[in-house]
Every structure is written in C-alpha cells, then in structure tokens.
C-alpha cells in the first residue's frame, strides 16, 4: 500500500525458484528497512473467518502464501 497510490506491485515470483526467491527476499528487506510492516492475509479453515499474520522476517512467510502486503507502520494519531 502506497499513500496516494493504493496498491502497487513491488515484486513477484516463484519462491521455489532460487533467482525469484532472492529477488523477493531483497524486496522484503528493503520494505522493512523503509519502515513498512508486512502482513499475510490468511483464512481460518472451517470458520470462514479471515485474519492477517504479521511477518517480521522473510522466513516467517507461511509456505504457499500468495502475497505479502506492506503497509506503513501504525503510529498514535
């Protein structure tokens, strides 16, 4: 999520391909270094309830996750 723009595709690729994975990791780190938070939308099987999983490291991204959403850190308003 980019203020003033909305959703912007940063990078995409197949994590099982090492070249793609390197690119995804690099972008992941760059976003976190710029002060963004990263979250993966998930579903609770059976309940229909959805929630997000905050990830602080690329290794925390659940296998099979379709996307990671980066958004600005929360601050007191």
């Amino acid at each position, binding site marked *: *999520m980019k203020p*003033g723009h909305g*959703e912007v595709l940063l990078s995409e690729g197949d994590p099982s391909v090492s070249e793609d994975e390197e690119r995804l990791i690099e972008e992941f780190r760059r976003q976190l270094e710029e002060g963004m938070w990263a979250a993966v939308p998930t579903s609770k099987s059976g309940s229909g309830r959805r929630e997000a999983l*905050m990830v602080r490291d690329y290794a925390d991204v659940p296998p099979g996750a379709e996307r990671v959403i980066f958004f*600005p850190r929360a601050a007191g*308003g």
Partner: protein
Amino acid sequence: MLLALLALALVAVVLAAPVAIRVARGRIEAARAARRPWEERPLDYDPGRERRAEQRARQLLRSCVNDEEWGMYRDLGFIRVAGSQPRGRGITARRNTDDQPSDTPPYAYLLYPHKPIVAYVPADGRLLSEYCVEFPDVIGGGRTRLPASDDVLAKWMALTSDETRVIGQANMHLVGRQLDPARVRRDLWRLSEWERRRAGSAEAPRA
C-alpha cells in the same frame, strides 16, 4: 468656500482611512484563506489518481476480508473486528454471561477510514474508548495518506495480527474526542439492523 470644501474632504478621507484599511485587510485575508487548501495540496495532486487508488484499495480490501466484513464496509462504511484479548487496554468488559450468545466477544472494535478505532461492548452497546491511530507516509514525508479503504485494511491487518501492539501504540481517549458518540451509537444500531436483515435473508426459504 472651495478651500473649506477641500479641508472637509481631507478630514473625511483621514477619518475614513482606518476603516477602509481594515476592510481591505479583511478581504485580503479572506482571499488568502480561500486559496490555502489548494496551496497546501502537493503540486502533483491528481484527483483522478486518488480515485483510481481508492478503487484499487477497495478491491484489495475485498480480497482480504471475508464476505460479511466486506458487505459491512460496502453497506455501512465501517468494519467490526472482535477483540481477541481477555482484557484489552483500558477495557473492563466482562466475559460472556448466560443471556449472551456464546459467540459474542467481550469487546469489539469499529474500524472507520481515517478516523479513530472505537472499542465497545457488543452485549450492551457500551462505548469504551477511541484509539487514535494512523499509518503515516514514512517515505513521502507525510504529504499524502492512504486511500480510505487501504486505511481500513491496514487497521484490520494490524488488529487481527497483533492487536496488543497496534492498540499499545495508539493514543487512547474516551469516545467523544474525535467521534460523535451519538453517531457511533447510531452506527451500532445500523449494524444490528444490517445483521438482522442479513440473517433474515439467509434463512428465507428458497423458491
């Protein structure tokens, strides 16, 4: 005679000058104030881009939340998220009692775009607190803000993934500092009506 008239005119001008200056200053200030909203906007402000950004944000929100939450946002303009902590910050809501449905959470939040998060007790509609939280533009120096639907999605992701952290970072106030309590209560009534209609349409026999 002419000299007397000239002297009178001069006196009139001198007396009227302060009033005329005050009126002129007022008009100049009003003109400046009218120009300010445009001056404060970034030079690259583009209403079409903002509209497209909001459309993309709505699609992203819809793809992340479930059907009920999306319908709530589409129809009512806010999303309710159940609180997950046994006892949240500043929250003294009781656990479920016998006369409450077992799936009623002890407290919940209302997420509005670009407005504080409101905590309340679903069982009796009691308003607890408002949490002022924003997602500032860290890269662009704070000149722009997230589209409305992205702001709601950011709150939803932050609350459902790490409620303690986001609520801990928010500025907590009693309801009424930024939001009108009467309006929030009206929204809770709208929500209950919306849920009643939704439950009714789900139970209606199919032809």
